[in-house]
């Protein structure tokens, strides 16, 4: 980047009336990072990256923090933190204060923490003897602070699978406060989670389009008991996380391909999977070996994160267009197209499992696979392995079509379903659908209901009312500005019976 361009772009950011002070500073830091050289890549990988067949999510060329970090807050609460000069808390007030301080110190790609802990499990030890009213009051203040201090929809907390007083209070507060932050996941275990608690979750979905629901037994199978869904529905290990997220654009891979479907499967697809992996490795090595993140960050020093619990996310998107390009059918509607989609995902999963990756002991030395839900600059390409907006079949057929892919995506899928308002008077029907979807092997998903003020742009939430105001007034939440791009580049609000799309950081200026 020439100094001239650098200065002009810096000026643009500094003078952008739609950005808050913090947002301007965040983008300025991104611009500075962009001015550095990229880690060395093969010509083939460089070319694929330039054409955006493989995509680094515009993370920047010099990763100096892991993209997704899931601190072990339970350990911190038990032992305190030397770096933060905090003793272990002894009551609820101290615990909430401790966590709020710690969140402010957790690095991430958005500069805001993507994981706030499984707050029901973390806080239950502190609520014995605390009255319902006091718990509600303290948690509500805490919740309000989360939204105002970390105004980014990728900030995420988890509750469940057990039904707890804290979990229920959180859902009640969510319904009352109607905030974008924090994003919320409810872990559901058919054996452990009572219908009543899932129903509380459903009632909350009606109000605020969250929580997201995850299939706890399936997650435990792949990640162990200590996992969480963070940011835009990335399931990762607690005490670990993901160094980076690099995604393969399957639509573009198919567009670059000349030849038969079999030829795509045996030549073109493995070629780009290899290049995506090469890019991941280069970025991991920079983070660990050059920026030496794990040697200096206090979270690592105090054992609140551990390199051995990290891996990296291999993302894919544009499956639907890929299939259409190759054989012309509609993925999710036509059987042959849907089956080819499953075949492609299975082939990618097999290959990714066979590529050794450094510093990825958190997943046995290979990458996690993730259906990436898009970013706001994506145009005419469907998120992850989803069915395109407006083409979704009925809910049952939809679930049947996408469920087989869920088995492979150990780092999350996030299919999203739009449901009709008639269900509002019958939340038990949604509980049935959730249980059925998990029985069919779905890993994670959520619902959008048309009647509330929230819309899930690609995975993260934005208020419709904020979106409408954004163009003129700017938005307090960093993610609303992404949402604005997604809203105008795709037609996410036009989605009919269910829903689709997206993600984190995007370039400030178009390529």
């Amino acid at each position, binding site marked *: 980047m020439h100094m001239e361009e650098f200065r002009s772009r810096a000026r643009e950011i500094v003078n952008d009336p739609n950005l808050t002070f913090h947002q301007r500073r965040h983008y300025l830091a991104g611009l500075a990072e962009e001015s550095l050289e990229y880690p060395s890549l093969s010509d083939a990988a460089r070319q694929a990256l330039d054409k955006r067949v493989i995509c680094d999510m515009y993370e920047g060329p010099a990763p100096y923090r892991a993209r997704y970090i899931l601190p072990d807050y339970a350990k911190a609460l038990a032992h305190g933190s030397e770096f933060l000069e905090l003793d272990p808390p002894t009551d609820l007030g101290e615990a909430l204060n401790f966590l709020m301080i710690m969140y402010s110190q957790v690095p991430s790609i958005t500069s805001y923490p993507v994981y706030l802990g499984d707050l029901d499990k973390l806080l239950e030890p502190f609520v014995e003897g605390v009255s319902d009213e006091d718990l509600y009051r303290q948690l509500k203040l805490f919740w309000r602070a989360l939204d105002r201090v970390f105004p980014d929809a990728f900030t995420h907390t988890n509750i469940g699978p057990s039904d707890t007083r804290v979990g229920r209070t959180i859902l009640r507060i969510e319904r009352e406060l109607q905030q974008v932050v924090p994003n919320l996941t409810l872990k559901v275990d058919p054996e452990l989670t009572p219908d009543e608690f899932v129903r509380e979750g459903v009632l909350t979905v009606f109000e605020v389009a969250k929580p997201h629901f995850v299939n706890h037994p399936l997650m435990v199978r792949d990640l162990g008991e200590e996992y969480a869904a963070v940011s835009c529905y990335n399931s990762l290990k607690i005490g670990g996380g993901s160094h980076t997220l690099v995604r393969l654009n399957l639509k573009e891979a198919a567009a670059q391909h000349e030849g038969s479907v079999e030829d795509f499967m045996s030549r073109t697809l493995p070629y780009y999977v290899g290049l995506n992996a090469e890019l991941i490795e280069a970025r991991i090595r920079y983070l660990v070996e050059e920026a030496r993140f794990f040697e200096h960050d206090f979270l690592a020093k105090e054992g609140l994160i551990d390199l051995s619990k990290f891996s990296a996310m291999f993302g894919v998107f544009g499956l639907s267009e890929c299939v259409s390009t190759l054989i012309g059918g509609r993925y999710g509607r036509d059987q042959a197209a849907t089956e080819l989609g499953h075949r492609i995902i299975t082939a990618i999963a097999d290959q990714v499992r066979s590529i050794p990756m450094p510093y990825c002991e958190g997943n046995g030395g290979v990458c996690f696979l993730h259906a990436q839900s898009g970013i706001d600059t994506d145009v005419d390409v469907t998120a992850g392995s989803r069915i395109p907006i407006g083409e979704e079949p*009925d*809910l*049952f057929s939809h*679930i049947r079509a996408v469920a087989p892919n869920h088995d492979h995506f150990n780092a999350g899928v996030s299919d999203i379903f739009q449901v*009709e308002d*008639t*269900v509002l*008077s*019958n939340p*038990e*029907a*949604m*509980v*049935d*659908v959730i*249980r*059925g*979807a998990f*029985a*069919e092997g779905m890993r994670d998903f959520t619902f959008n209901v048309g009647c509330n003020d929230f819309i899930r742009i690609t995975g993260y939430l934005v208020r419709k009312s904020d979106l409408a105001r954004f163009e003129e007034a700017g938005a307090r939440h960093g993610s609303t500005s992404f949402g604005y791009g997604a809203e105008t580049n795709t037609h996410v609000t036009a989605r009919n019976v269910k829903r689709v799309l997206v993600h984190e950081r995007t370039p400030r200026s178009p390529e």
Partner: protein
Amino acid sequence: MSAPRGLLNDFIRFSSVDGPGNRFVAFLQGCNFDCIFCHNPYTINTCVDCGICVEPCPEDALFWGDNGAGVKVDWSLCNLCGVCVDVCPYDSTPLARSVTVDALWEEVNETANFLSGVTISGGEATLQADFVAGLFAAIKDRSGTSHLTTFLDSNGSCGPEIWDRLLPVTDGTMIDLKALDEDVHIALTGVSNNRVLDSIRYLAVRRRLYEVRLPLIPGFNDSDDQLARTANWLAGVDPALRVKVIGYRRQGVRSQYGELQEPQPEQMAHYAHILTGEGVRDVVQV
């Protein structure tokens, strides 16, 4: 005894408005009422094979079967556009099909993981009581579906001998009460309500009455006086009874029955207020 077959109009796999939880709903063909506000009048009569619909079908999906087999459907061509139903002068459809208990059970079984239960609606489900009893028994007996509850959505016109056949395999019923006054009921449906009132009492005593539904038609059965007496009567049956107020909707109603006003939310709230005031404790509005 040969296995009973049912005449099926259609089914939907997911419904959140036909009883508790998510339900598979089968709509049987044929009804013994002729309600002026019916939203799917093409389910009222069975097809007489007149063939009026064959020619207008834009997809050429309808044809004459061999050897006097009547009007047939090529399902690979039909796109459910509805032209056949629109041109039918008999309030019927050529698309209804005869199904076995096993065939419909297979459809239920495929969706069973997602369901609280199955609801048979219509048309009038109790007109095909053997089929319904057979299907419900299969649902209860067979692994894979035995967790499902079985519900009937009925106009309440059948007698106790039919209910006695159905109730051993039926968990709940939803009965429409179109009017408490017999003359109003006849004006709305063409028949008396004696058996409907009997059915409501019969089912309530046997704890199989999940819900009574009041479709309110402006100017016919929605006066304050009628509603108050209806509420009073229902509270006498069981004050804890779940009563669903269904506002009139134009959707699907035959054009000869004119354009009535759809009630506004305030009007719906007013209905509910009167019912509650007369002792009905559980009022649901849709």
